[in-house]
């Protein structure tokens, strides 16, 4: 499965667990609009680290946390393998 669809699947799984109703996940949806709180994002980043083997937000010291779903996904797509 490509990185993008794995991220989307994980977001949906966590939304289900956290009882969050997600709006349609488009690239320009802001992360705030997903309804995720910081705990849900923390879980998302940890699960993706286990699944994809990387955590782009810890790797780079100056990494700003992304603002939109598209930025979030690109942070994973742009990590050198």
């Amino acid at each position, binding site marked *: 499965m490509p990185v993008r669809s794995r991220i989307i699947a994980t977001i949906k799984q966590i939304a289900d*667990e*956290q009882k969050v109703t997600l709006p349609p996940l488009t690239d320009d949806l802001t992360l705030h609009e997903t309804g995720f709180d*910081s*705990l849900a*994002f*923390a*879980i998302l*980043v*940890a*699960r993706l680290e*286990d699944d994809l083997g990387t*955590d782009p*937000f*810890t790797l780079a010291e100056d990494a700003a*946390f992304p603002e939109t779903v598209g930025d979030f996904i690109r942070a994973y797509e742009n990590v050198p393998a």
Partner: protein
Amino acid sequence: MFPREIFVLRDHLGSVLTERTISDSRHSVSISDLGTQSCLCGRDAELAGRSVLLATSGQFLAGLAMIEIDGVARRMLLCPPDLKADHLASVMAAAGIDAVVTDQPDRFADIGDVLVLPVGLPQLAENRAQTLRATEWLMLTSGTSGVPKIVGHTLEGLCGAIIGDSPAPGAMPVWATFYDIRRYGGLQIFLRAIVGGGAMVLSDAGEALADHVARLQTRGVTHMSGTPSHWRRLLMSGAAAHFTPRYVRLSGEIADQAVLDGLKQAFPVASIGHAYASTEAGVGFAVNDGREGFPAGLIGQGRDGVDMKVVDGSLRIRSRRAAHAYVGHNAAALTDADGFVDTGDMLEQRGDRYYFVGRRGGIINVGGLKVHPEEIEAVINGHPDVRMSRARSRRSPITGGIVVADVVLVDGREAAGVDAVRGEILAACRARLASHKVPAMISFVPALDVTPAGKLARTDA
């Protein structure tokens, strides 16, 4: 002037009419014979007034030497088997050690002006030293990091919870413990056996659990103590089926409902009690109603000479059973100005009961919210397929930390598929815990480490 009667172990060895023994997997001695025998080649008088380090390779010689040295030496420091070599010198200096009793003299060949006395199996000795004084008993705290602290007790204080307390009465109690008797929890059991007129079956480092349990049964052990982690390991092993104690005691960690229920199921005729004790505060209390936590009425003044209060969420104890001081240069104060020891064990009141929720130092911080790993483990351990678990912090760039859990399943459960169990555990956590306390990830592991002191190893604590 006739001296006040001194409370010493040697006055509790009993007569030859009772068949009391101290044994391990290789040796057994009659307790009543110890009054006329010496494990120090009859040289015990040389220790008069000295500060003695008791450093033996096993518990058997340590126990015999304790009986012989008590009442003679000024102080006696019990050296646990896992004391790091690089801490030995600083501990000896802090305690002012000027004599070592050991079966490993090579270890102390280069330490200079210190009397080294060999210890071995007891032999008949003509002249035994007289009782001279109340020896100060020194023990080391079981902290996992840094130099251990030295805690000073009197034998009278150490035995404060023992005299007059006989759980599961009946024929002579034969005590055993998973603990090492050179730690507070194990020493309590050794002293119960000696002072309380019983026998003692020691554990052996390195002995397989099934062999140990077989020996307990052969020796007729009636009373057994250990940490909840020790007991969970026994329940996991399947060896419990061949063991029929009368009294099962838990201490040293939080006894959750799952382990209490598991023990009740495994030992249906035994009394099961959990006790609160620490090396510093001594034995606080024992709970025998089969429920986790303890009645709120125990908090307050003067039950059995133990005053307890809760300040900033942690249990504080003032008691004659508490240690009297930390020993050493610049040692910290053991108590506050009012004589209370801050145990660092955090409590939460629910209804008419208090529940231990964890250690102050073990808190996981999830985005500024505090989580005790033990409260999560208590929920996970409630699942019937779970044998033991450990909740811990995993670093997170978003919240600083998140909670994850490692879980050991009951034998054979893994083969049936773990996804269903994972879902059930998470559902139980969501039903009973705030969302930041629900593990973000659960890993199934074959085993969890237990420290030499018998407690679940917490690497991030």
